[in-house]
C-alpha cells in the first residue's frame, strides 16, 4: 500500500530524512516512532504529497507520489499533529466541503457523517463554528473528515493528542476496522504503550535514519517497546 524507497529530504545542508526505506502492506497498522526532530513529520508530509523531497521515491498503491500526486491523494487521508481547520466554517460545513472535494455521493456522506459523528459524540455540535470547538473536538472533526471518503491509506501524525480516553479508544477501533477491510495505516506517536498494543509493525527513526524496523515481536522481543526505544536512543547518542 505504501512503499518508501531511499527517501532523502534536506533543509539546506542538513538531512532531515536520510535514505529512509520502508514498506506497509494492506491490513497493517504501522507505527513510526522517534524523538522530537527525528524526521517523522517530514517523512509523513512527503508521503502525503505536501512536501517535496530531494531523493528517493514514494509509491502509494503502486503509484508514484511525485508522478501521480492527485491519484495518490484520492486514496489517502492525512491527519496532522495540530488540527488547524477552517474556523469560519461550522463543523458540518467543513465535513460537507471535504465530501464535495473528494466527490463523495450524497447518500454516502450523509450516512458516514451521521455514523462517525455519533461515534465521537459530536453530532449536536456540528452546527457550531469550528472556532468554538476545543482542541479535542477539532481533532475528532479532523478524524471524521479523514474517514469520510473511505481512504485506503490513513496517514496520521500524533493522532491521539488532545483526545479523551473514550475518543482515543474509538479511534483505535476505527483504525483496526479500516485495516481489517483491506486498508493500511501509517502513524507517528510518542505514546509507546499505544504503539505496542496497536501496531502490527513498527519503525524507529533517529536523525533522519531508520535504525530499526519490523513486526512488533521482532522489534521488542521479550522486553517492552519503551526499553528497546530507550536502549537504541542511548546506543546512537
Amino acid at each position, binding site marked *: 500500500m505504501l512503499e518508501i524507497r531511499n527517501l532523502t529530504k534536506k533543509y539546506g545542508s542538513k538531512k532531515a530524512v536520510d535514505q529512509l526505506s520502508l514498506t506497509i502492506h494492506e491490513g497493517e497498522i504501522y507505527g513510526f516512532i522517534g524523538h522530537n526532530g527525528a524526521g517523522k513529520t517530514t517523512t509523513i508530509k512527503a508521503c502525503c504529497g505536501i512536501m517535496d523531497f530531494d531523493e528517493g521515491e514514494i509509491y502509494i498503491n503502486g503509484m508514484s507520489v511525485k508522478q501521480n500526486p492527485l491519484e495518490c*491523494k484520492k486514496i489517502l487521508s492525512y491527519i496532522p499533529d495540530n488540527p488547524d481547520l*477552517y474556523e*469560519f466554517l461550522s463543523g458540518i460545513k467543513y465535513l460537507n466541503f471535504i465530501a464535495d472535494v473528494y466527490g463523495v455521493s450524497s447518500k454516502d456522506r*450523509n450516512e458516514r*457523517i451521521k455514523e462517525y459523528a455519533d461515534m465521537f459524540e459530536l453530532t449536536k455540535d456540528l452546527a457550531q463554528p469550528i472556532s*468554538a470547538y476545543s482542541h479535542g473536538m477539532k481533532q475528532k472533526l479532523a478524524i471524521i473528515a479523514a474517514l469520510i471518503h473511505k481512504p485506503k491509506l490513513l496517514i496520521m501524525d500524533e493522532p491521539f493528542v488532545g483526545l479523551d480516553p473514550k475518543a482515543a479508544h474509538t479511534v483505535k477501533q476505527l483504525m483496526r476496522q479500516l485495516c481489517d477491510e483491506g486498508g493500511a495505516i501509517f502513524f507517528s506517536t510518542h505514546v509507546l504503550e499505544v504503539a505496542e498494543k496497536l501496531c502490527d509493525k513498527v519503525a524507529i527513526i533517529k536523525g533522519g535514519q531508520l535504525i530499526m524496523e519490523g513486526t512488533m515481536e521482532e522489534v521488542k522481543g521479550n522486553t517492552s517497546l519503551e526499553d528497546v526505544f530507550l536502549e537504541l536512543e542511548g546506543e546512537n547518542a
Partner: protein
Amino acid sequence: MLKSLIKIRFMAMFSSMFRNSKKGKSYGIGMKIFMGIVFAYILGVMGMLFGSIFYMMCEPFDALGLNWLYFALAGMFSFAICFVGSIFMTQSQLYEAKDNELLLAMPVPPSYILLSRMIALLLMNYLYELVVMIPAGIVYVMFLPVTAMGVIAFLVSVVLLPFLVMTFSCIFGWLVALISSRMRRKNLIVTIISVVLFCGYMAVCTQLYSYMEALVENGVQIGEAVQKSIFPAYHLGKAIADSSVGSLLLFVLCAVVPFVIVYVVLSKNFIHIATAKRGTVRIEYKEKQLKVSSGVKALTMKDLSRLGGNPMYILNACTGSILLLLAIGAAIWKYDDVASIIEMGKGYMGDEVNEVLWALAASLFGACSIMNIVSAPSISLEGKNLWILKTLPIPSGKILISKVWAHVIACVPAALLGTIVCLFLLPFSLKGFLMTLILPLLVNIWQAFFGVIVNLFFPRFDWVSETACVKQGISVMIAMFGGMAIVAIPILLYMFVIKGALDLVIYVWIWAAVFAVLCIGMWRYLMTAGSRRFDRL
C-alpha cells in the same frame, strides 16, 4: 521586562510589514522603498485632504474670534479617525490576542502585558493623529500668528490626545467583544453595521465641502454647542489658540485621568478579561440532507464563507463594490440631476451623448471595480490551513481558479446591478449597454487574476489575525495600487496622447479587448507556472 514586552510587540508589528514570511528574511531594499513610497502617498493624500479642510476654516474662524474652535475641531477629527482606525485593533490586540495565555502563564505582571499592548496601539494612534494635526498646525502657522505657549499647548495636546482615544477604544473594544460574542449572527450584524458606517463615512466625504461651508457659516452656534457639550475639545482648542494654561491643565486631566483609571481597572481584571469565555450562543445541529457540489464550487464557496464571515475583509476588499452601490443609490436618489445632465448633453451633442454617457458609466464602474481586492490576500489567508488544500485531490490550478471565482462572484453583482439601473436612467444604446456590461466584468476578472498572482509572489502565512492579513499584506497594497496604475494607463493615454483623436467608445472597446487578452494570459499562467509556484509554498 516591560522593555522586552514592548520590543517583542514592535518586532511583531514590523516583521509583519517588512519580512517575507515564507523565506523568513527581510524584504530587499527595493521593496522597502516601494512600501515607503506607498505609505507616504497614502499619508500625503490624507494630509492634503485635511489640509484643504483646515484651509477653509482657518481665516473665517479667526474673523469670528473662534480660533479655539479650529483646534477643537482638529482634535475632534483626530479623535474620530484614531477611534475608527483602532477600535477593532484594540479588541483583537487587547482582549483576543493569541498570545495572551502564553504570556499570562509566565511570571510577567498582567499590567506589563497590558501596557506593552497599549503602547503599540498608541503608536498606531499617533500615526493616524499626525495625518490630521500636522496639516492643522501648518495651515494655522501659515496664516495666523502663534505664541510659544500656544506651540507648547499644541505639542502637549498632540502627545496626550491618543490617550483619550485609548480610553474610549478600550471600553468600546471590550463592549464590542462582549456583545458580539453573545449574538447568534454576529458576523452578519457586524458586517451590516460596518458597511452602514462606511457608507455614512463616504456620504460625509462626498458632501464634505458643503458641510464645511455650513460649519463656517454657523461657527458661532457650533462653537457654543462644542463649549457646552464637548468639554475636552473646548479646552484643547482654548489651550492652543488662546494660550490658556488653565485650559491646558484641564485638557491634560481629561486625557490622563480616565486613561489611568481604565488602565488600573483593566490591569486588575486583565486575567479575567483575557481568559474569559464570553459565552457563545450554542447552535444545536439538526440533521438534514447535505447539498452536493463540485470540488471547485466547494472551494469557491469556502472562500466566500471566509469573506462573508469577516466584516473587515468585506470593507477592505470590496471597497469598489460598496462605492459602486453608493453611486447607484445616489444616481437614483438624485435622478433629476442625472436627467438635467442628459438634457444638457443632448443640447451639445445630440443623440451621440447616449453612447458617451454609457461609456462614462462603464468607465466609472470599471474604476470602482479595480478597487476590489478580494483575491489579493486569499492565499495568505489560508495560513495554517494551507495543509488542507495541499492534501486535497484537486489540481493546484483549480484551487487558484476557485479563488478567482470567489472574487468575481463577490464583486460582479454590484457592477451588474449598476448596468441594470443604467438601463432605466440613461437613454438606451445597445453598444453602450454591452460596454457597461462587459468592461466592469473584465476589470473584475482582471483584478481577480491579478490579485491571486500577486499573492502567489508575496504570500505571508504568519499573520496574527485575519484583519492584519487583509489590511497590512504587501500583496493587498500591490493589487490595489498596481490595479489603479494599470487603469490609469488608458485614461492618461487618452487624455495626453490620443487627445480625443479616437472615438471614446471605440477606445474603451480596444482596452476591453486588451484586458480580455491579459486575463487569458493570467489564466494560462495560473494553470501552469502559477500552479507550480503554489505547490512550492
